[in-house]
């Protein structure tokens, strides 16, 4: 008999289906150092996360080439468990095409990661990214915040064959704009990675856009994997929807 997924959260039992953490990191932010990667993988094992897609925190802070190297090294250390995003930035336009071309030679890179650093995503500097994503069928994950996706929806509309994943959907409790974008754009997905867990928001998203438009990420090592997975396990939605959010939708998008 299948145990209801909420019981896994209530008992701390390891999940028994392939969970995909599509938004995680390696490296550290400034205030303190992250636990070592093996501890992160140990938490994946304990919770039952099969696969994690990571970008480098240091890369997001501007050390782009080194960051992509670190992401590749993490994937090499844990083959089949850790995959990588190729991170590029509008602030370093000369690195965009060379880094994308370099990363794609490594099959561990499964997507492209962008951050909000002041340049809107509909700025022409990003045109090479969309062309590359289309050609190599790579989903694009962007950090977004508070419902202001700084043009990510506009480029999603222009490039319907590319999967656009809006990170931190619902952040700042700005849930309506995210739901509206995901409803209106077939290739626009909500990534629930977010420290906070606003009451009724996951249920709202599922009702408004459906689980096939929602993906799950932990933001580890910034946040705890078990906390992030727990908010889905305890959500008042059907188990089939939880399975889609925790892995099914991402496996389809990333061809895992």
């Amino acid at each position: 008999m299948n145990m209801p997924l909420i019981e896994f959260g209530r008992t701390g039992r390891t999940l028994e289906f392939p969970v995909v953490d599509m938004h995680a990191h390696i490296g550290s932010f400034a205030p303190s150092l992250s636990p070592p990667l093996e501890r992160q993988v140990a938490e994946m094992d304990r919770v039952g996360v099969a696969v994690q897609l990571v970008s480098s925190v240091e890369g997001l802070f501007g050390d782009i080439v080194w960051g992509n190297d670190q992401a590749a090294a993490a994937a090499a250390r844990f083959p089949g468990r850790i995959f990588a995003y190729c991170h590029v930035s509008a602030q370093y336009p000369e690195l965009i095409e060379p880094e994308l071309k370099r990363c794609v030679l490594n099959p561990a890179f499964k997507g492209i990661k962008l951050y909000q650093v002041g340049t809107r995503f509909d700025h022409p500097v990003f045109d090479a990214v969309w062309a590359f994503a289309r050609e190599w069928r790579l989903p694009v994950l962007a950090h977004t915040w508070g419902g202001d996706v700084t043009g990510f929806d506009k480029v999603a509309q222009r490039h319907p064959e590319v999967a656009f994943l809006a990170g931190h959907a619902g952040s700042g409790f700005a849930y309506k704009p995210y739901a509206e974008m995901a409803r209106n754009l077939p290739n626009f997905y909500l990534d629930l990675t977010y420290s906070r867990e606003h009451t009724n928001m996951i249920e709202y998203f599922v009702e408004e856009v459906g689980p096939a438009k929602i993906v799950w990420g932990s933001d580890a090592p910034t946040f705890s994997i078990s906390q992030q997975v727990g908010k889905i396990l305890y959500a008042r939605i059907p188990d089939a929807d939880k399975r889609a959010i925790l892995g099914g939708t991402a496996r389809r998008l990333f061809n895992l």
Partner: protein
Amino acid sequence: MEIIDAYCGIGPWQKRDRLLPWRPEETLGLMDHFGITRALVHSNFTSGGGNALRGNQVLAEQVRIEPRFLPAFTLTPYPHADEPSLAEGLAAMKAAGSRALWFMPVAHHPVREVYGELLDACVTHRLPVLLNRDITTPADVAALLRDWPGLRLILCGVGYMEDGWLFPLLKRHEQLRVCVGQFYIPADSPHRFLREFPAERLIFGSGHPFFSPGGLLANLFYADLPEAQREAILGGNIRALLEESRL
């Protein structure tokens, strides 16, 4: 296992988002879903800027109806002679069975001059004092702990990148506790915390109605902890603090 949510607001408040629950029966329904036995409740009305007398009145009415709610009153030190005194406020707390204080200092008001008597009383009566991180600063928390070293302070709403100032304060002030509620969920938690501090310093609280406790509960149930520690964090610690209260 008795799970007690130490960080739970009930009732209406001014700037409510329509997605959020506010009726006590909604809170009770969610407590059932999450397996929460009892909740230490404060007034949403008061924490949202409404006057504490009305907020306390609503709390007292609710806890009379629902024994799963344990009240945490807020006392405002009023300036005028025709307003309720601190002694009257403490008597009202005692009458309602409130054994903890939801502290609501106003930003930039001088703490010793305005809140000194209230905080002295909290130390004397061993009242646990809950303070929301959103309305204070690390420097103000440090000053509070320095000036009232006996204060049983529970800091709620601490964020995932705040260990840099939080851990030094925890090392220096034994009476400081951290509520794991809302978003104190750093990587490798709660193990990283427990390698340095006893489980008695962590207290479970959800941040209801703004936040949902599922992730926090799963975080504690997946954690590789002795059951006694898990039970302490999820309810035993706040229960012990409330029982030690001498009001």
